[in-house]
């Protein structure tokens, strides 16, 4: 199949512009870039699906029909782009509301890990063993005498507990 040059150029420019914007820090720009990339890739579907033709409707028009499968896929992609972009806008608005700017900030947690690495420390969740630490213990008998003989004692302890409350 032969490619359609103008569409190929459109795809390249759209994706290129989109990528440039996505690498920015402003969430609005990132979203605009995202939509640009999405539109560009939808056009890529057209390039890949072969030459133009009549609409894929049975019984209407004459001649070669354009390929319906990439169209169905692109249609799904268009609507998904809408949902995800709207979500991104909500994120951008939220970020602006909380920080006063819609710029993506560097992750503080990552910075924290980097500093630990520079100081040659272990991670915070690592359980460092202390040399003279006690052996593991089921530690069941930490409080009062609760070992009972039977039902009568059961009742007694429950009374005791109520008294304590």
């Amino acid at each position, binding site marked *: 199949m*032969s490619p*359609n040059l*103008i*569409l*190929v*150029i459109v795809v*390249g*420019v*759209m994706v290129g512009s*989109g*990528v*440039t*914007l996505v*690498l*920015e*820090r402003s969430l*609005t720009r990132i979203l*605009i870039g995202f*939509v*640009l990339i999405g539109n560009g890739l*939808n056009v890529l579907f*057209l*390039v*890949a699906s072969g030459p*133009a033709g009549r*609409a894929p*409707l*049975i019984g209407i028009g004459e001649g070669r029909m*354009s390929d319906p*499968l990439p169209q*169905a*896929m*692109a*249609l*799904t992609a268009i*609507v*998904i*782009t809408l*949902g995800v*972009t*709207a*979500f991104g*806008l909500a*994120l951008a*608005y*939220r970020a602006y*509301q909380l920080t006063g700017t819609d*710029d993506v900030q560097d992750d*503080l*947690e990552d910075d924290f890990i*980097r500093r*630990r*690495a520079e100081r040659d420390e*272990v991670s915070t969740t690592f359980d460092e063993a202390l040399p003279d630490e006690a*052996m*593991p213990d*089921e*530690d*069941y008998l930490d409080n009062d005498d609760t*070992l009972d003989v039977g039902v009568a004692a059961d009742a007694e302890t429950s009374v005791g507990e109520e008294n304590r409350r």
Partner: protein
Amino acid sequence: MVWLVALHFLAAGVAPALVKALDRRAFWILALAPGASFAYLLPRALDVTASGEPVHERVTWIEPIGLHLDFTLGPFAAILALLVTGIGALVLVYCSWYFRPRDPEIWRFAGVLTGFAGAMLGLVLSDNVFILYTFWELTTVLSFLLIGHNPDRRANRRAALSALIVTTFGGLAMLMGLVILAVESGTPLLSEIVASPPPLEGIVIAGVMLILVGALSKSALVPFHFWLPGAMAAPTPVSAYLHAAAMVKAGVFLVAVMAPDFADVPGWRPLLVALGIVTMLIGGLRALRQYDIKLLLAYGTVSQLGFLVALAGTGTRSAAFAALSLLVAHALFKSALFLVVGIIDRSVGTRDLRELSGMRKARPLLFVTSLVAAASMAGIPPLFGFTAKEAAFAAYLDLGADLGWNTLAARLALAGIVLGSILTMAYSARFVWGAFADKPGVEPCHPRAFALGFSLVPAFITVFTVVGGFVGGWLTPRVATYGEAFAEGAHEPVLTLWHGFTPALWLSILTAVTGLALFFGRHPVAAAQHAIVDRLPMPDADRSYHALMRGVDRLAVEVTGRTQRGSLPFYLGVILVTLIIVPGFALVRAWETPQVSEIRLADNYLQMAAGLLMIVAAVLVVRSRRRLRAVLLLGVTGYGTAILFVAHGAPDLALTQVLVETFLLVTFVLVLRRLPPFFSDRPFTVMRWLRISIGVLVGVFVSAVALLATNARTATPISEGWEEPAYTYGGGKNIVNVTLVDIRAWDTLGELSVLVVAATGIASLIFLITDRSTRSLSRPHRVTTPDSNQWLAANLHDARRSIVFEIVTRLIFHTVIVFSIYLMLSGHNSPGGGFAGGLIAGLALMIRYLAGGREELDNAAPVDAGMVLGIGLALAALSGIVPTLLGGGVLQSAIVDIPIPLLGELHLVTSVFFDVGVYLVVVGLAIDVLRSLGSGIDAQAQDEAEEQEEEVVPA
């Protein structure tokens, strides 16, 4: 047998409810699961051990890959299964006294322990290696939960974790080995692998060794032994069951089942016998130094497990016989001893033998139980432990004759187990002395009273220890059935109290006397241990493990710190540069072989015009510093895309693209009104050029891919010839729509889920209640207009009214909604469908919002957006499920012609219900977007304005 395992899991499932209702008495009911299994298995086990014919059972599961629930009751598994179920039932009964009444944690414990009993039974019975592995890991995970029963202490958490990591590591090695073995043998069934083993060479040897790693880690052999003493953090019933009778025997079980065929694998015997004996000695020496009687038993278990693995791995008939006998004897005496420790712990409050004193007089029954069980452990006649140990000595005395080992190796092995047994004698005596003796200068303990049943459980188990010693004649043929898989040895093994004056008897006497001497001379022995053993240049396994884990953690921190810089543009840049370099390199290579046949400039002039417009707009988007301008230019590229779709012959795409673009444009503007008009200035020009060059390169790359991929395409499109079936089966003339709702309806269903998630996410982000925004999403309600002459409820925002807009909105709204429904229904045959229809309805709602504000939106759509989304998704899912209930495939559609009076026939394709679901989801998304990014932001803006006013007034 499958049902026995299932019964356990069922009991585990209802355990929390039972505990809630009956408190700790629930354990009695739970004990019925292993108890009933024991009763069921007992006659069958007797049959199997008498006849040697294993019982097979299969429940068909996943036919295509040949994975079935295969269960087998072989001679070894039968006896182990009896132990697992029998002791499991008794331990559960014991638990009903061990725990406090109304302990808030036991609902979980009861479920996990019962589930563990089921997993252990499944492990012992399963014949398919993959099912076996599943149960194996299930016991690992459940034992992790049991060891970490009391997670408050750090040491306990670490013990649980190290048990998990060590045994899972072994388990993964084992899985590799099992896969190798199953592939090389051509069957995953253990019984068939053992019946016709693959040739013992190359990869099979590697596989067997990997399996041994798993077995050794589970059975706590050196160098994996350190996890078992740590596991004593578990409640004592767990130690009695998992760490004496059941789980730690899994490794021995695996070795025993494989030994008949694989003992001849090079390295098998030296490895297992040597590691086993070393473990036996290390465990024994360590046990002699413990003050905690539970830890003493734990190290004793390590020692005995070493003994068992050495015997099971020897691979002679008499050693196999001794291994099975000792396994049973060990399960009986060790579980009883652990249970005694639990009672002492619960009634005195300490397990430290320096504080325990006077218990012999205070608790005579416990004392007798312990004395008998410990004597069995030490190998004193007339108990089961004695007969089993005699058999082991006899087996190792004939090692040279049976295996042809040279005298030195055989004698060394014999000396090893005799030395280990001497240590066993010594620590057995230390246990009884430590727990029960009167110690001068120590205050006698006054144990609290407890129910008689509590101490009857270990006593009951110990009865079998005594009986087992006397019924050796009855036991011998039954135990020997397993040994028949091995070649006949120099002597036929037998369990008996009196062999005559054989070398084994002299060894037993030597063991007992020397062991007692070691015990009585414990002070000099301890000093000697301190002086010699501590100085030996032996790496401490626990410390090495910890150093290893620390190393892994440090490596993770270093790698994360170096690679994860926390900057989103940096990450994206790395990904994109990788895209340019790696696939780009392949692209350049592919370019060298010329295959570009012909390139056409464009299909028609419309493409040229739209394309040029889009290129200009896209470049301008990047250059613009004003937000609004960027968004409007983005809209130009979007409408341009729609024109390209028209020019290509894709009306459905064009329609959807125009609607989406419009909706998106308004949504962008709704949000942008609250953001600053300009993008923040970033002076770093170098970075700017870097971004642009990455963008250009990626653009060139994608263009090149488009050129190359289109040229490379030679196959016939998959959609060739869809016309005919689309009409006859799908019942529609619009092939794209039939594709969406029928041919590829799964895709669409997935997409709907994404939309529902996105919509819910949007609403949650805006209506999230924090200190900054206190608005919550209230139920939409109708707003009545005070002045009934008003067109819309817009009188609430006088300043922003537009009479023309209001009137037009009022006039067209209902027409547009009807049109959207028409578009949805007619979409099957002409451009349209659920997506387009839903978007048009969404736009109609948007117009109402723009004309009359948020009250007007609530008037137009007095429904909860979540409800619309949910109904839509449910409808789409139902239209997928209903056909299966009627005997069709998932999402299959049917064509029904319903005659309607006056109007003629309704040609109904059932996939229309799916499309209605699509319509509703899109409308729901639109309502959510408008209500969140429109009304929600309005309300927040209003709140802020009011706050500012309040601040201004007092000033």
